[in-house]
């Protein structure tokens, strides 16, 4: 293919594409490079920043674990079974991608709010969502579960059903077939879905800001500082967050890459 390259169309396409890449890369690079490392270090030492970042990482991880338990079985069913309403279920799984996150926050508040049925039920066992860590987890789960379910479903779809059938004829029950054949073969896709979901959870702002402004997660802290003190105070926090996200993203890419090889 290499030689097909030397034509003018490819050059034009490369120019157009380069502008888009530049548009994505420059603001991020600029933010990261224009911050003084010592200021970033100092920012990292602030208790408020540290606890916000830790809360973000932890809440997103918790949301991912919850999604793993409920989402992987769902993904398997969507990949293997044929049932009425399957299209609808697939649609519902992807809805959170297109619902504005502030609207998602309102919707969650209506169901999990203090005065709602569920809110009161959970209140009895001492679990409250509004302005509390569980609310953050709920918000992150809502907006990012699609990524895990879709990725796991693709992973299961890539497993040849004949492998499962052969396993059955070799004496494996459905349960053994799932754990010894389907799950190990889909594992990379599931893992990359989990990392993507976690990264997407970290970056959530709109739904969390409505459901649980406090305790503050990093994106909310960033917004707070920007609103209260302006760009210069928000920048070190932004840099920190971008760096953390880029690192997880690189890890994700490396896993996906190994998968291809």
């Amino acid at each position, binding site marked *: 293919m290499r030689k097909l390259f030397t034509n003018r169309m490819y050059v034009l396409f490369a120019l157009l594409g380069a502008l888009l890449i530049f548009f994505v890369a420059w603001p991020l690079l600029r933010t990261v490079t224009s911050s003084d490392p010592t200021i970033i270090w100092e920012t990292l030492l602030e208790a408020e920043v540290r606890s916000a970042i830790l809360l973000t990482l932890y809440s997103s991880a918790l949301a991912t674990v919850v999604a793993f338990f409920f989402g992987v079985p769902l993904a398997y069913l969507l990949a293997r079974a044929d049932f009425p309403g399957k299209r609808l279920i697939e649609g519902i799984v992807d809805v959170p991608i297109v619902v504005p996150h502030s609207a998602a926050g309102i919707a969650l508040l209506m169901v999990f709010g203090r005065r709602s049925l569920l809110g009161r039920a959970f209140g009895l066992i001492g679990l409250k969502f509004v302005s509390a860590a569980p609310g953050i987890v709920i918000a992150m789960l809502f907006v990012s579960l699609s990524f895990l379910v879709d990725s796991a479903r693709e992973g299961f779809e890539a497993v040849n059903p004949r492998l499962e059938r052969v396993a059955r004829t070799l004496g494996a029950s459905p349960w*053994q077939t799932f754990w010894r054949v389907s799950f190990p073969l889909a594992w990379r896709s599931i893992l990359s879905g989990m990392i993507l979901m976690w990264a997407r959870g970290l970056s959530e702002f709109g739904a969390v800001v409505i459901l649980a402004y406090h305790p503050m997660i990093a994106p909310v802290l960033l917004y707070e500082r920007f609103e209260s003190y302006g760009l210069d105070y928000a920048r070190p926090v932004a840099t920190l967050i971008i760096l953390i996200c880029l690192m997880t993203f690189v890890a994700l890419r490396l896993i996906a890459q190994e998968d291809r090889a």
Partner: protein
Amino acid sequence: MKSSGAVQIRDLWVDLREFHLREIDLDIAAGEYFVVLGPTGAGKTGLLETIAGLYQPQRGRVLLDGEEITHLRPERRGIGFVYQAYALFPHLNVAENIAFGLNIQRPSGLGKLIRRKSAQENEVDIAEQVDEVSRMLAIDHLLHRSPKTLSGGEQQRVALARALVIKPRVLLLDEPLSALDPETRESLQRELARVHRQLGTTTLHVTHDFEEAVALGDRIAVVNQGRIVQVGTPEDIFRRPASEFVARFVGVRNIFAGAIAEETDENGTGAKTFIFEASKTVEDQALKMAVVTDLTGAVQASIRPEDIILSREPIHSSARNCFRGHVMEIADRGTLIYVTVNAPPDFTCVITRRSREEMRLREGAAVHLAFKASAVHIF
């Protein structure tokens, strides 16, 4: 290591998106090598998957050694399955693939902890069984390789070993040779025959390749569009196809429509004659040939190309049917050469490359044809 069961299938109907099976009745004896032959898309894979319990039939029963297994779960049937495209577990190495079925049957988890010693013994036992079957199939040097590094033939041997190691009562082979190149196909075909001789496992082998079916099958069932159209020995199917579909499928080229007439010859013995339909227009010259049959009326006749003797000189032989004609077409197939001769009906004969050179056969040449009355199959 002998273990084989008889399979009976009674009035089986299966309806699925990809295929439909209708009124399937089969009796496969214990230890038999039974081949199901049919074109692609005839539902052959579906038949095997139904026997293995992977699909539930709409109607009908499957019996193994007289015991009904129609609704038994696949993992309880003890039926080995080999798919056309190998279907090896890519995350396990060859030894682990072969041992899969044995490991499943081993107590796991808690049971393993409690009976630790017996579990160890078990593992040694499994390793021995894997060794034995892989030596038998000459793949013992591949045990630590990953399936994707193997050639097609090696992969299919592993798949076979994996199915055999659980000592199935029945072995189902779904086009096991179709994905292989001709040379490997031939050697694995020989292997299948040897393994069957050695173990005597009842085998149900599905294929679309007639030569494969003839080479391996004790008996053959021909299926078309989800129905069984003929069951018999290879010789039966080859010599006495029950329908035009079977005849064409097994490579009979000379199929003629016509009618049977009875004639009495000078000695007073009755003989049957086949009158070609195509020749009816030329009233006075009705083309006919001597045949041996019990049928009467409108029938079809077929003659296998290799049963026709082709010669440049008039043929004086015991063959009852002699025709004179012109070579219409010579189709060179490497080792074999197909010659179409217009007598007026077109007969296709097959000769070797050497015969062609010796006869100096060219298109348009006048030739003589001869074949025995018994070589004509009437159906």
